[in-house]
């Protein structure tokens, strides 16, 4: 900015003979203005981070004639409206029978961290076992491959829980992601998305109805 003025001033001082000599200095101000304008534009429009994603595998539908196996050590989460979660453990029973009593739903929630606490509690045995293996691994008592195999076996063994996630028609996508996320955080063994069945839905509706009338 100053250069042109100075150049002009110099030309003026140098007398009439030199007045015609052109200054070789170019005023760069407009160019700099433009460069920074473009720079600002590109900086603001640039997207640096790629969207993150979560990998999930859905179960293949079983062949129609196959009998569904009874899930051992299953914990079923039922997601419904208003971000509420109900759960029950074991097999679903619509009524008392010789194997057990009628299923009763308990409630968990996202906001007060009760889901997190519950999962932590449930996976404690498995987590401790994995931690013990990890310690052995760190002390070089276990080879890498053996360690990985043992962890995998531990996660899949009969004492670890299988989590089933079911939603009714009022649950939102966010709830589903939140539950899966919580399961991932707690490194549980297995979880799967399953379709809800009618008796379960009835039980959930009953529960919602009961609480909404008392409120």
């Amino acid at each position, binding site marked *: 900015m100053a250069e042109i003025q100075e150049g002009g001033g110099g030309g003026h001082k140098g007398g009439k003979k030199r007045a015609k000599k052109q200054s070789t200095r170019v005023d760069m101000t407009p160019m700099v203005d433009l460069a920074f304008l473009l720079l600002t534009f590109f900086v603001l429009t640039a997207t640096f981070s790629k969207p993150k994603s979560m990998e999930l595998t859905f179960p293949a539908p079983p062949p129609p004639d196959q009998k569904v196996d009874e899930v051992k050590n299953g914990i079923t989460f039922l997601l419904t409206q208003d971000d509420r979660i109900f759960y029950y453990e074991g097999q679903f029973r619509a009524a008392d029978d010789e194997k057990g009593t009628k299923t009763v739903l308990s409630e968990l929630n996202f906001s007060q961290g009760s889901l997190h606490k519950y999962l932590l509690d449930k996976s404690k045995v498995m987590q401790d076992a994995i931690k013990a293996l990890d310690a052995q691994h760190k002390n070089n008592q276990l080879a890498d491959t053996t360690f990985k195999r043992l962890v995998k076996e531990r996660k899949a063994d009969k004492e670890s829980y299988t989590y089933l996630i079911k939603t009714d028609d009022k649950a939102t996508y966010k709830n589903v*992601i939140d539950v899966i996320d919580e399961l991932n955080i707690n490194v549980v063994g297995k979880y799967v998305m399953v379709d809800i069945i009618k008796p379960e839905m009835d039980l959930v509706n009953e529960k919602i109805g009961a609480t909404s009338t008392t409120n």
Partner: protein
Amino acid sequence: MSKKPSKGGAPALDMTPMVDLAFLLVTFFMLTASFRMAEPVVVDPPSSIGQVDLPDNHIMVTIDEKGRSFFGISNSTAKMEALKEMAAKYQVNFTPEQVVKFSGLPSFGVDIKDLPAYIDTKEDDRKKFRGPSGKGQTGVPLDTITPNNQLKDWIAIGGKKAVETYLAARDKALEANQEFKAEKPRYAIKCDASTKYIYVKDVVKTFTDLKIYQFNLITSLEGGGTVINPTK
């Protein structure tokens, strides 16, 4: 500095390094910038701890909060091929210009019969788009009961073409003894946090019917990413 300015004017400042730097940065941002047209819907995905980057080569179904689904393929060659095959299947005519224009579009959510008109619509007018059938962007039809499951066809044909394009590119690179870095196409679902899960279920059902079981569910990073929502 002790040196006093010799004249009354402001001191000369050499701006050359600054200009150099400015242009260097401009060049960098220009070259790295990838321009995309605005998506037809703004979707605010829920957050999770998922750390996997969305694969560059993907086939994506976007579901907005009203349950409309939008379909998109990242690879433009595969997209053109898929459109040609879909056009033949549904007997809709596209001009070659429309096919090329289509490859540059982001995801779309219209019935294939309205697609030629949709492609010809100017970008700013797409929000108010009304096709020949009178329907707007109601989402790609995905009726799981009637045979009019266009989304299923899009996924099946789009997936096939994406794999073909990927393999062709790989073979070409192998022949020329070049390193080939691209990934296999993957299926992604992007969905708004407040969408009812039953809509997602319909889309997932469409995928599982095609024996596709693995997805990348797009989420924002835990801790709340900033979502710039131009509509608000």
